[in-house]
């Protein structure tokens, strides 16, 4: 083992860097999905669409800002603006006019409704942005690269990916934890998550909590998409692949667990990059191997607590 580390320790270090950067984006999307499920108890398939639309919006706003001659740092504002605009418009609209009508329905029907919404939003993306890949590399170019020493040479990394993305993810995690545990609004959300009936009986307006939580989840997903726009090309179908991975994170983390989502995203991100480095054939299945392994040992997820089923 010691010999293996001697030979491959530096490679493992590189894989960790890649894994952390990748985990940051996975976390941003999955935590929103997890939060929404925790409060609304609706598994929202259209969450992947918020990611995609956030990315497309970021690229459009960023390219527009560049075209009108705004300073390069404005491209960072474009990412944030895209997330807020996407989440603040789509979130309330969907919660108020669609989801609110199916809260009392079977979960299968809820799933079908959000799946239908996902399909509609996929077509909407094609109508607005077309089918050719869209990207916006401004922020990556602006931040440049950092050289990591390796075997007498250097490996250049995008500062955007290895510094900015993890910092944003950490701030999101810390901010969410603080909000949910230290503020009244956050405690209200937690109360609704733990026992909707009791919270409502205490005078909490559950409908308002649902609206705010869903909108916030949509903003987080859109922020994930916006943050991915500078490094990836957005194409039709990107929302579908995102939602599949997000479901894996949510199931592994435990439904409604934000710290669990962070840890799971980290495990998946690092697991994938370690696989690429040492056993590339496993890369595609790593997220699901992790999910299966965790669920075999803890069916309620890493941070989930077993719930008593009401009959």
């Amino acid at each position, binding site marked *: 083992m010691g010999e293996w580390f001697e030979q491959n320790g530096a*490679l493992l270090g*590189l*894989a960790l*860097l*890649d*894994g952390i*950067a*990748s985990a940051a*984006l996975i976390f941003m999307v999955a935590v929103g999905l997890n939060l929404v499920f925790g409060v609304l108890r609706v598994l929202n398939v259209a969450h992947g669409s918020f990611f995609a639309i956030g990315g497309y919006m970021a690229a459009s706003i960023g390219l527009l800002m560049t075209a009108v001659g705004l300073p390069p740092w404005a491209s960072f504002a474009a990412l944030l603006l895209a997330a807020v605009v996407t989440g603040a418009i789509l979130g309330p609209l969907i919660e108020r006019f669609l989801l609110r009508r199916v809260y009392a329905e079977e979960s299968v029907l809820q799933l079908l409704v959000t799946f239908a919404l996902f399909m509609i939003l*996929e*077509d909407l993306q*094609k109508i607005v942005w*077309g*089918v*050719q*890949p869209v*990207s916006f*590399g401004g922020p*990556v*170019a602006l931040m440049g*690269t950092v050289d990591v020493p*390796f*075997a007498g040479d250097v*490996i*250049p*990394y*995008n500062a955007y*990916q290895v510094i900015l993305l993890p910092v944003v993810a950490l701030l999101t995690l810390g901010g969410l934890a603080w909000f949910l545990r230290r503020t009244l609004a956050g405690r209200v959300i937690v109360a609704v998550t733990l026992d909707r009936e009791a919270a409502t009986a205490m005078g909490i307006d559950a409908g308002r909590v649902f609206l705010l939580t869903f909108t916030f989840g949509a903003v987080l997903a859109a922020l994930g998409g916006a943050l*991915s726009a500078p*490094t*990836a*090309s*957005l*194409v*039709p*179908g*990107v929302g579908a*692949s*995102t939602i599949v991975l997000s479901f894996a994170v949510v199931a592994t983390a435990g439904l409604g667990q934000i710290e669990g989502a962070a840890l799971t995203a980290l495990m998946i991100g690092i697991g*994938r*990059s370690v696989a*690429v*480095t040492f056993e*590339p*054939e496993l*890369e*595609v299945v790593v997220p699901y191997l992790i999910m299966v392994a965790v669920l075999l040992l803890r069916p309620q997820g890493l941070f989930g607590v077993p719930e008593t089923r009401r009959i």
Partner: protein
Amino acid sequence: MPVTSPLTRRGALAAGFGSVLLPAGLSAQAPAAKPSELKIGITTFLSGPASVFGVPGRNAAEMLAEEINREGGIGGVPIRLFFVDEGPGIDHLVGEFRRLVQNEKVDVMLASISSGSCLACTPLAEELRKVTLLWDCGTQRIFEEGSYKYAFRSQANSTPEMMAPLLYLLKHKPDFRSLAVVNQDYAWGRDSWELWKAAMDVLKPGVRVVAELFPRFGATDFSAEVTRLLALRPDVVLSTSWGGDLDTFIRQSAERRLFERSTFVLPLAESSLERVGRLLPPGHIVGSRGDHWHQHPRPADPAALQRFVANYRRRFNAYPIYPTYHMAQAFSALRAAYAKATAANGGNWPSDVQLAGAFPGLEFDSPTARLRIREDGQALEPQLIGTTAQDDRFPFPIMDRMVVFPPETIMPPVGQKSLDWIRTLTADAVSRVPDPVRPAG
């Protein structure tokens, strides 16, 4: 314009009685009445990641159909298009194929982008006895493993599409000793690597394959792959990826200076050049899945190429990419086949079986070359490969040192399977690579 003549009363009666009295199996051979419109079913990706090719293909089809109809149609018959989305999967596609043939009574099918779709559609073409032109899919297996009377392909297949860039690399960068592959994890990514690896092992044994990476189809991050390649420093990086995957891979490789360390071979990058712009630096090998590009160095019909490019750009605000040319080839093959079959039928409109009989040996024009469909149904199409270069006229890289590979030199003859043929190759294959041609203008 094909020569046409109106159907005679006797012909019409014969056709009518034939269709009523003959069993279904024989009615396809009866003389056909000239239809009021020629219905063409087209399967293409209208959703999902492959719509980056499927929608330009549809756009080209609509543009060409309008042009053909303005000129009076095919053989004097206006054409009408029916599109089917390949996105939902094979089961949906097969059902829609049947529906178009049996319910909509389409006259011809053009299928498909995905090789999996084509593998499913060709047996259907035989079963339904409906002429089906494979307009874009790549798998070489179809005509190597099966024999079809109603299915034909109007473009090349995976074998020449992989042989051409490999021979180009061996000719122009013969000293490479190590190679890494980064292909999408699905049939094309795996199959194209199998063809490349088999040919490379024969033509340049001893090349060290330092990494075989198959990231998830539709991946949006290649950071770990780029890191691995930066650490391994292969002389050559091969990627047959396309669409958003290829754009992202190029973007992340450029940002992290991987292009400075390795020579890239990107056989499908023609379709990404306009989007990635100057991120793709000079000196890397790119291909176009055929003999077509808007700056083709010696098109057979320069005016036709210019017209096609100008019309497409005016209408869709983008340069045409390879699926649009493949669609143009399919339409050209169809026109030529109807003309040939009509002439062979004494000027009368051909039946399905007569139309099918026109394809073996058929010659037809693309904007850049004259193509021929072999006896096995597979078209012979040259392959254009070049090296990226900067040109102030364009905000994206162009191809320089372009080589147009004659099709006979890069694919097996009729009756031989690709991998068997590859094993017979010798170093002569490299020495026979034509000299490069500079871009026009």
